[in-house]
């Protein structure tokens, strides 16, 4: 199998394509040429830095290094999760909920994928753990974020209906059941769509990467199938944990609705 290394010159040739966007910005007065340049430089620096960090970590033999990278990834994903909540539900409790969910679900799914399904040697080989954890976190992040979004919006919009059920003697989970179901369905839908179109509309990123790196496409497909199944499971579990925790946060031990725990919407601007 042939694997073509990219030189700095190759990257610069690719960077020429950015000029197209710069030209569009200038021609149509979008005034984003500076932002484009900064974003491109950021992207390059971030990816190169990650590349060198991973190169270092992959060279280590202690599982502690893998663990350290994993913890940093979870914390960053937790921060990103709260950023996506659009000013809603941003207490430290909610941040904790996001992080615990990602840690629990990301950790469990990754361990399952690495230990039970792939089974590399040594078991903590960062070459397997880090990319799988990254994909799991990225997808769980999306599903958890969607689930919390739909849950909090639903709690506000359906406030009267939820309180009516509470007044009729429903437990908090029974009172939230309609909103819960909607939140879970919304959270699982992206991966449902991914599975339906995988390989038809586009080749998934990991499979593409493996093929470019010289792997047998049939082998790459098997890996991709495994990953999508793990991601689907992780997303479902993540959404479930987030919705469960979210309902607990939005209610109290007396099963009362506590929307006051949700900070008010940030004023525009």
């Amino acid at each position, binding site marked *: 199998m042939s694997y073509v290394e990219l030189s700095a010159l190759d990257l610069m040739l690719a960077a020429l394509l950015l000029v197209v966007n710069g030209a569009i910005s200038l021609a149509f007065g979008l005034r984003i040429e500076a932002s484009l340049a900064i974003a491109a430089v950021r992207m390059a620096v971030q990816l190169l830095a990650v590349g060198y960090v991973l190169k270092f970590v992959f060279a280590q033999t202690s599982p502690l290094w893998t663990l350290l990278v994993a913890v940093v990834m979870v914390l960053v994903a937790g921060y990103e999760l709260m950023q996506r909540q659009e000013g809603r539900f941003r207490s430290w409790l909610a941040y904790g909920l996001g992080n615990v969910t990602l840690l629990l679900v990301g950790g469990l799914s990754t361990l399952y994928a690495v230990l039970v399904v792939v089974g590399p040697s040594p078991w903590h080989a960062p070459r397997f753990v880090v990319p799988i954890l990254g994909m799991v976190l990225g997808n769980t992040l999306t599903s958890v974020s969607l689930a919390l979004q739909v849950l909090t919006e639903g709690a506000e919009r*359906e406030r*009267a*209906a*939820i*309180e*009516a*059920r*509470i*007044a*009729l*003697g*429903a*437990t908090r989970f029974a009172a939230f059941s*309609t909103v819960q179901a909607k939140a879970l369905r919304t959270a699982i839908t992206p991966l449902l769509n991914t599975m339906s179109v995988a390989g038809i509309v586009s080749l998934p990123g990991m499979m593409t990467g493996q093929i470019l790196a010289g792997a047998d496409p049939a082998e790459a497909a098997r890996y991709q199938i495994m990953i999508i199944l793990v991601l689907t499971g992780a997303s479902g579990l993540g959404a479930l944990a987030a919705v469960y925790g979210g309902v607990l946060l939005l209610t*109290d*031990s*007396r*099963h*009362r609705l506590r929307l006051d725990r949700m900070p008010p919407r940030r004023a525009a601007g």
Partner: protein
Amino acid sequence: MLKIDYLTVPGLPPVSFDVAVHECLAVEGPSGSGKTRLLRAIADLDAADGFVFLEGIERRELPGPEWRRRVRYASAEHAWWGSSVAEHFPPCAKLGRMLSALGLAADVLGRQVAELSTGERQRLGLARAIADSPSVLLLDEPTAALDPVSTALAEELIKLQLMAGRIVVLVSHDVVQIERLAHRRLKLADLGRYNEWDSAAA
């Protein structure tokens, strides 16, 4: 007996009163005087200091849902979480009789909530609150959207509940209705004035 002991709803002075079985107490006061907040606190829908006892059991001794199955708050506007009427009702043998007592056709359970008139919704909401036989009914403007005929039917149903041994706390702007239903009255405005006097002296 429902015993309210020093219940402190935010914005109101502490309230204490008893309501006996078979008894209807009317809570009166101008808009904003805290009638709804008081009823919600009794049903433990909002946090409040003080005690509420039902037959000697304080509300915190029971899980919230269990308390609210016995002490039922029925809001002025009933909210609906499903699209069909039937999914809002627990299986209940007496339901058909109760619906016809409120002047509702038996097939109303098969209809969609969106098709109902305001008056039909209010009567269904009342039936929903009563259907599983709670011990205490905290009724917040139970007939506000009803015509005189439906109001009379709803009042008859409330009287039947009292005869069956329920405790009723009624909030209503209709003074004639209060005269027809209530055995005693509690005026929140008086309590408010007491509160002003109290804070001025402090």
